[in-house]
């Protein structure tokens, strides 16, 4: 696919020829997001420099009835930024200006292309940070965070993206620019800000975001509970939550992931442990030691072999690096992995983790676990070889079965990655057709012609049973050979 000459010409007038691309190598680069099981080549890529250019681009695409979607860093894990055939991708990377910082109001206004971690880096010297901290925070952008309503380990105490965004500028699919929210907490009328957050880029394209800044904790205490049983670690999670202490983060890592991170990042986790639990408390220095001691006691009472306390910031950083880069570390033990994002009532953790293990055995697949235990947000990593068609198929079945287990115990399909393409067909297992049709009705007000990021987030009406299957491996291999040939880069 490529732009029709007339459209290319018009888009070039808006953005300049350098910022309109439809060569084969570029198209290949944009064929998927972080979930590589689903791929499709877009029609072309447009790189607007600012919201004015973006509005003009959107108006052209809308007039031509072309489908389009906005993409940040492409780190999404549900296929939300995967194009359809003939879809134009609007790359938001150039809208990365940091506009205003206001420490009295505790806000920062940024472009959607700003990388999540940059916000905290920018305001850290003044004693603040931006709370949502997805594992991909070194790469993912704030626009993507808003689209997916991203979370991260520290959302247990502080909330997810929607809790840390006060205002937005949004381009609707017909090019209309609207402001929602502002620089303070509440507006009269319905919470459009909350509605647009997490709409997976199907309601509008965010061009500016007013983010809340949170004071850095005076003291953080990081505990590492070491367990010889995953079930005990899960029981300990419930015990901590029940005690009335709400940690800033409560993360579980199982032995497969421990092995992977020890091969690569070497945080010093005991390799004979079945699981480790990272518990982080944040507060004033005064009194935090007592809370930490209480948590240590609870972990020991619930079967921890040992509880270690990070001695200094360096040790704390080492533990967190291992947690946040654990998905990447899996690369040393498996050519591919498929991560799920189901969420369950946290009191069901022990039984669900056992069921996940059983599913792994049933499909003869290794399933590693590293997840936000305090929120009940699971991230089972199904390890597979992408060159083995049968294993890919079994991976899909196992993933689906895991999500069905989550639903059967009162949970939901996604805690922070979104539905995207990946989980569409399971939406009817959670919501009635009526509920989905109602969501579609709401979407119709923003995106009546479904030109913006079609077929994402909720199933297409009357096709609730639809299932998007991954591309054929042979197609992908052929495409990657083409890219290697043309670019000289091995893919």
């Amino acid at each position, binding site marked *: 696919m490529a732009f029709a000459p007339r459209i290319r010409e018009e888009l070039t007038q808006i953005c300049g020829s350098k910022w309109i691309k439809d060569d084969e190598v570029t198209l290949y680069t944009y064929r998927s997001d972080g979930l590589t099981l689903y791929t499709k080549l877009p029609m072309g890529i447009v790189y607007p420099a600012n919201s004015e250019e973006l509005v003009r681009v959107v108006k052209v695409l809308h007039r031509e009835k072309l489908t389009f979607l906005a993409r940040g860093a492409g780190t999404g894990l549900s296929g939300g930024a995967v194009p359809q055939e003939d879809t134009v991708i609007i790359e938001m990377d150039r809208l990365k200006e940091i506009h205003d910082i*206001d420490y*009295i109001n505790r*806000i920062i206004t940024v472009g959607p292309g700003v990388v999540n971690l940059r916000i905290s880096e920018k305001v850290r010297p003044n004693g603040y940070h931006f709370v949502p901290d997805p594992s991909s925070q070194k790469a993912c952008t704030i626009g993507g965070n808003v689209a*997916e309503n991203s*979370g991260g380990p520290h*959302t247990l105490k502080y*909330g997810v993206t*929607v809790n840390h965004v006060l*205002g937005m500028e949004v381009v609707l699919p017909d090019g209309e620019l*609207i402001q929602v929210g*502002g*620089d*303070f*907490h*509440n*507006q*009269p*009328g*319905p*919470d*459009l800000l*909350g*509605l647009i*957050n*997490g709409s997976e880029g199907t309601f509008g394209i965010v061009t500016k975001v007013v983010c809340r800044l949170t004071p850095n904790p005076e003291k953080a205490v990081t505990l590492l509970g070491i367990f010889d049983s995953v079930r005990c670690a899960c029981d300990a999670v*419930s015990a901590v*939550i*029940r005690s*009335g202490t709400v940690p800033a983060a409560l993360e579980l890592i199982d032995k497969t992931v421990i092995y992977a991170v020890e091969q690569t990042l070497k945080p010093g986790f005991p390799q004979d442990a079945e699981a480790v639990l990272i518990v982080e408390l944040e*507060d*004033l*220095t*005064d*009194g935090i030691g*007592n*809370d930490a001691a209480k948590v240590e006691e609870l972990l020991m009472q619930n079967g921890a072999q040992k509880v270690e306390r990070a001695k200094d910031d360096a040790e704390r950083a080492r533990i967190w690096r291992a947690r946040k880069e654990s998905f990447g570390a899996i690369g040393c033990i498996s050519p591919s992995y498929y991560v799920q994002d189901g*969420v*369950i*009532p*946290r009191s069901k953790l022990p039984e669900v983790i056992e069921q996940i293990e059983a599913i792994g055995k049933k499909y003869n697949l290794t399933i590693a676990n590293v997840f*936000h235990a305090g929120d*009940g947000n699971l991230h089972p990593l199904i390890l597979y070889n992408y060159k083995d068609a049968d294993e890919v198929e079994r991976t899909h079945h196992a993933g689906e079965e895991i999500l069905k287990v989550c639903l059967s115990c*009162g*949970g*939901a399909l*996604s*805690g*922070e990655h979104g*539905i995207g393409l990946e989980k569409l067909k399971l*939406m009817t297992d*959670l*919501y*009635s057709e*009526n509920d*989905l049709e*109602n969501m579609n*009705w*709401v979407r*119709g007000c923003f995106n009546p012609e479904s030109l913006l990021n079609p077929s994402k*987030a909720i199933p297409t009406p009357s096709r609730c049973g639809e299932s998007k299957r991954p591309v054929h491996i042979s197609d992908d291999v052929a495409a990657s050979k083409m890219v290697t040939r043309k670019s000289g880069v091995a893919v």
Partner: protein
Amino acid sequence: MTTFTPASIEEAQTWLQQRLEQPKPFQIRGNQTHFQAKAIPSSVESEDVLSLSKLTATNFFDPDDMVVGVEAGMNISKLQEILAEKKMVLPVNPWFGNSTLGGLLACNDIGPNRLMMGGLRDCIIGIEYLNGRAERVHAGGKVVKNVTGYDLCRMMLGSLGGLGVITAANLKVIPQPVEPHGLYSRFRDTSWLLRVAALQEARLPIDWIQALAPATTGEPDWILGIGISGNPERQARLEKELQSLFQNQLKSITDGKTNRSLGYLPGTDRYTGWLEGLRKKWKLLPNYLHVMVLLNTRDALQPIRLEALQHSDLHQVIHPIGADLHFLLDVEDPNEQLDFLQELKNRFRRTDAKMVFGNAHPDLSLQDLGEFGRSTAYSFTQRLQRHLDPAGVFHAPFYQLPQAMNAS
């Protein structure tokens, strides 16, 4: 006027289905604790009412998972009572204890601990409502973190009865604060604003903050209260820092309980209707004017000169960090109310402030708030309302304002 009070959600749904056959607007009500202003003075009020006051069931309460689900007609005091049995609390600040949960969600009340503990938008995890086609729809769920489908929970928050009939909601709750404790001090002027600015800069993790000035014929007598909680070491440290910022002027409110002798309320009352006690204590006339001004902390702390708003019948309740400012004028004359409203609008003209009526003489309308009464994406909000209520049955004045309005 006819009022239909269904005993079940199914009854409400059947009633709405019939209503849609011969579309005629109706108002949705809970316990009528909130005032609903007309859009413009000549607006015709809907005569029919759908009252949800009998929908009071608890659908589930799982303290281990810190989640609760109740029907929309349950009043907030009752809900807090249920939660308190398991030492949990819904950390939002209703204005009135008898407000139903549905009313609270539809009006999106906020209060003294908005900044530190959040508001309803930080607690809502699931919703059930009847839409403009009389369909019973659900969104969200029972888990504390969820991005499955569109967030219609938050769409319904603050919807003021215009987008559907909220019939039930699921909420994230938290453990009760440990040993809540309050500190207060009196001020003869608004010099406390400077101290609060210093407090904001110090980034201390307080629980809530509220200043109030009862009506007086002389200089207003401000009482500023600050809530803290936690283990003894934490509280000792906070108290030390706060005393330093407030030059050792802070006195203690025992165990964080409401101190009625001071007229000071946000102790435990902040979870069960913080405005209710004040309304009673100040013996406000039925048609008193209550305007809530929403604005950013910087504007709340710096240039507004609250003392210049002095009026012998004016009570003020200020939540400076956050920020929402409540002006309660105890006069019933609509012209006097309009004059005061104009004064407020002048005062906040250079800010992006928004205003909401908490109460007013029935002759006052939303149009009197001008642009201050409209949200940032107001015309889109109107479009959304028309889209989701094609038959026009949900009587909701907020969405009926004329397009062009004069901020003056």
